[in-house]
């Protein structure tokens, strides 16, 4: 029940979004950490979930450092489109997934991925793009944290590291 509460809070943050990118990134990652902690008991391997949580903490620190001077703006149009995407994703997932599974949680994860990617496409500034992709990666960590396969975790770590390195280079070059 707490897990569902934290998931819904996470969804709110992704759609609403805070104007400052670094604040948005830190909130999103911290909330994913809380969700992981909430869903602790039905994870397959607890160690991987713990590793994911520590990784998320490191990433919040790094993303804060990177996105200091960045800025992006949210227009009403993107908000409405985000809402539409969320409804679409959740209804699709509910139609497909069987009732026994956490249909709502999977729907939320899938909608987060779609919304954030869409936001990263829409935003012209580099900060917005980076934050969008970071949030999609957080949603992925949520899935991997619960399903917990060691190789998947390794892939996640490398994806995060490569993305952050590239974002650093981009920020240096394009400001």
């Amino acid at each position, binding site marked *: 029940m707490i897990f569902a509460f934290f998931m819904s809070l996470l969804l709110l943050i992704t759609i609403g979004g805070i104007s400052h990118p670094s604040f948005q990134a830190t909130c999103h990652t911290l909330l994913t950490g809380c969700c992981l902690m909430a869903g602790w008991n039905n994870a397959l391997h607890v160690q991987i979930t713990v590793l994911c949580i520590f990784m998320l903490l490191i990433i919040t620190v790094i993303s804060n450092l990177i996105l200091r001077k960045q800025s992006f703006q949210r227009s009403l149009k993107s908000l409405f489109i985000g809402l539409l995407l969320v409804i679409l994703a959740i209804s699709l997932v509910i*139609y*497909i*997934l*069987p009732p*026994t*599974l956490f249909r709502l949680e999977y729907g939320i*994860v*899938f909608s987060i*991925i779609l919304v954030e*990617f869409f936001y*990263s496409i829409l935003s012209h500034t580099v900060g917005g*793009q980076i934050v969008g*992709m970071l949030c*999609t*990666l957080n*949603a*992925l960590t949520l*899935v*991997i944290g619960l*399903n917990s*396969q060691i*190789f*998947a975790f*390794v*892939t996640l770590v*490398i*994806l995060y590291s*490569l*993305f952050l*390195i*590239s974002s650093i*280079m*981009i920020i240096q*070059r*394009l400001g």
Partner: protein
Amino acid sequence: MASVGDLAKILYWGCVIWPLVGAIGILSCHGQKAKIRCHIIVTIILIVITLLSVMIPNDFNFSILWNYDSFTGFLRVMIALGIIISTFLIKLWMPNRFITSGNEMKTLMNLIFFHVFVCVAMLAVAINNFFILLIFLYLLIFLLLIVCFINGGSEKVKSAWNYFRYILFFMIIALMGVFILALPIVQSYELLPKFGSFILVFGIIQAYGLFPVCTLFYRLVIQLPSLIGSVVLFVVPIVFLSLFVKLFQISGYQNPQLFLIGLNLLSFIIVVLKEKDDLFVLAPFLLIILTGLSAIFANSIEGIYCVCLFVIMLVIFAPLGYLLDKGNLSSVFKNWFKLALSAFPPFGIFYACSVLIAYLVLQLPWLGYSLLTLFFIRGYFLFRNSNYQFFSNEILTKEGYCLIGLIILPSIVLPILSQYWIFQIALQFVHK
């Protein structure tokens, strides 16, 4: 060295590590000419090692990390062959392309990253674990980003960054698909595996340049320096295609055939429409699409046979087209290339297309005939005005003979020589 299998394994790791050794060698040489000569020698030795690693049959049992079968061996040989051809062409047609605008450091970094890129590609082709494979694929694209950074130019960096982000999104989608397929109850619901495999496939095929991502990939390839651009044009698609072909081995996977065919045909039409202005870079995309189309039927012998044939065509015609576009050669060369790529007999991709269409006519007649009519229409659009000069004095020079040799090589020589080997590959791959 107890058994031959160990020798094969060593050779495999050899052809992975050898490019790194080459990179170090280039670093140690001083002077532009020495570096370029070292680069050429390394690439020549690379193909020798890969051929050896394929020739020796391996009896290594299945391992989670490293998996050798004849198909991946074939892909590795093809990648090496493509690299040899691109370096040879650059050396023959435009030797000054190696040195990028006089900056010593840039050429060095380009050469080194070229070798690292090859090493990662060799690794990525043979890895059997899905997650590790994604790591290497993403590493490939990251390398491209770094190359763009080195060569500078905001246009380059923007296109690389966009492509980087798109591929990240599609990889995440692919991972989601895999996790859905990995669910224990996936068999009990018929919609679940369909949705999972749909997401998985959609994520992967976008990476090797189908619509809508092909415009991004096209813009990225054009920005790259010619040495790396000609190689990227066929290595990235081949690696992602090998992943796409191996998907059939995932237990719950159901191939969304109609969607894939539709997407392929749509991208075929778009490439045909955009082809009029610059055929030479877009033509390899056509080959990628045809390989993708035949890879859809990869769970049958003819499917793999067509994939192998088209890979041969892609490996040879991609660098040829890219460098024809870059270099300022006479229009007769371009006419020959256009004839080779138009799928008309006698040269070029005629044989591979005819085998593919023949197989499609058997399986899905409507698809076979629609593809045939597409080729008819494309032929009309390509050759509408009829003043094509094929023979002139330029063709009888050294470059002319090299070009005609390269055109005849994949159309007549290679299919005949490698026909038996490809058939064995197909048999072994399907029965696994």
